[in-house]
């Protein structure tokens, strides 16, 4: 099973490497958001730990949705879905592989986008290690649900509009935890940062388990 998951994941990552427009688009999105932020609310407010964190994670949430939809669009174009699903344990592998590859891509986006935000906004980072932990766990918690939602909306019209409606309410807990955790790490609240990080880990586990349980039913 694990090697099949790895197979799907490697396929995804290779495709992304060949055409990294997903990563590029997501990072550009974050950069544009940061610039807009500074212009619209002024650099003082933009540098506020809470504001900067919130916008960063919202951008990542959208990036997750975009990346996941692109990943499945590739699938539909190649008609590769049927073959993969037909294998025993194929659906689990598909879910696992997609989540894994998306997590890796998003970590890359988060790293570049995050560094960009820190530089452009001149954000003081009180607890860099805590920040890395929070961002890592936050990114882990995003793909499982989004993958399930994209699978659910797979061959429907208007799925570009439907997926955010399905995914964002369900992602609220993760986004709240990630934003608070990031803000805490930026402003030096070690206890706060770690508690939110713990919660994010719990979310990542719970949603991955839910996804693994439920996705076999959802993919035809």
């Amino acid at each position: 099973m694990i090697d099949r998951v790895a197979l799907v994941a490697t396929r995804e990552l290779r495709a992304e490497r060949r055409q990294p427009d997903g990563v590029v688009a997501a990072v550009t999105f974050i950069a544009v958001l940061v610039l807009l932020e500074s212009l619209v609310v002024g650099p003082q407010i933009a540098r506020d730990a809470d504001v900067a964190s919130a916008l960063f994670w919202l951008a990542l949430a959208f990036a997750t949705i975009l990346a996941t939809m692109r990943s499945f669009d590739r699938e539909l174009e190649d008609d590769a879905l049927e073959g993969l699903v037909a294998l025993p344990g194929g659906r689990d592998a598909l879910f696992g592989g997609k989540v894994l590859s998306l997590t890796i891509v998003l970590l890359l986006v988060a790293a570049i986008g995050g560094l960009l935000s820190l530089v452009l906004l001149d954000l003081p980072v009180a607890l860099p290690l805590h920040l890395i932990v929070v961002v890592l766990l936050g990114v882990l918690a995003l793909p499982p649900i989004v993958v399930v939602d994209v699978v659910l909306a797979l061959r429907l019209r208007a799925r570009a509009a439907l997926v955010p409606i399905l995914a964002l309410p369900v992602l609220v807990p993760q986004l709240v935890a990630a934003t608070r955790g990031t803000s805490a790490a930026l402003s030096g609240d070690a206890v706060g940062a770690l508690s939110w990080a713990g919660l994010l880990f719990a979310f990542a586990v719970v949603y991955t388990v839910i996804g693994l349980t439920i996705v076999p039913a959802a993919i035809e």
Partner: protein
Amino acid sequence: MTETTIPRGNTLPRIRPWLGIAAAASFVVASVMALFWAPTDAVQGDVYRILYVHVPLAWLAYLAFVIVFLASVGWLWTKRPFFDAVAVASAEIGVLFTGLFLVAGSIWAKPTWGVWWTWEPRLVTTAIMFVMYVGYLLLRGLSTDFSRRATRAAVFGIIAVIDVPIVHLSVLWANSLHQLPTVLRAAGSPALDSSMLLTLMVSLFAYTLIYAYFMSARVSLERARQGRLWTQI
């Protein structure tokens, strides 16, 4: 698709007229009690009467979504179309009741708290729950294939229900860690004397019957549609 059940329309319509009469009668009684019989509150005056509508609708909205969950599990487990019918019916009515209790609550809040809306945890969770179930209905609305639609909806129905308490806890936790000043009493309901409690119970009973009646009608409507779908194959 291996199921070939022809929906049995007979049992529900026989109960339904009686259910309808009972619902209408108790609704009238409850409304009279709520508007005229129950005493004026010492603190809130007469505006609190809105709660006689707001609270029952809230209870039933939550019940409706629990039923969506159970029906979703039922469909995934047994693939019987009946469960899918119950799921969509309960979701529709649940969305209606949620929207209504949010509106009623907002109208009550303005004279009582001075604001139409506040970012209090329960309100935020309810708003998110509302959007989730609208999403559920949209997901259904955009699907054409019966069996796939039922499965998609069931999967999302289960995720949505699991998520509501998680959303609520995270919003609560976020607020407490941030120590937002809660000027507004969390409960917000008047101290209940016995006649108020009675009115509330009667209202709850009446709206439960209304829910049951709506469910009965909506489920049989869905079953009829399912019957037409099967015969088109």
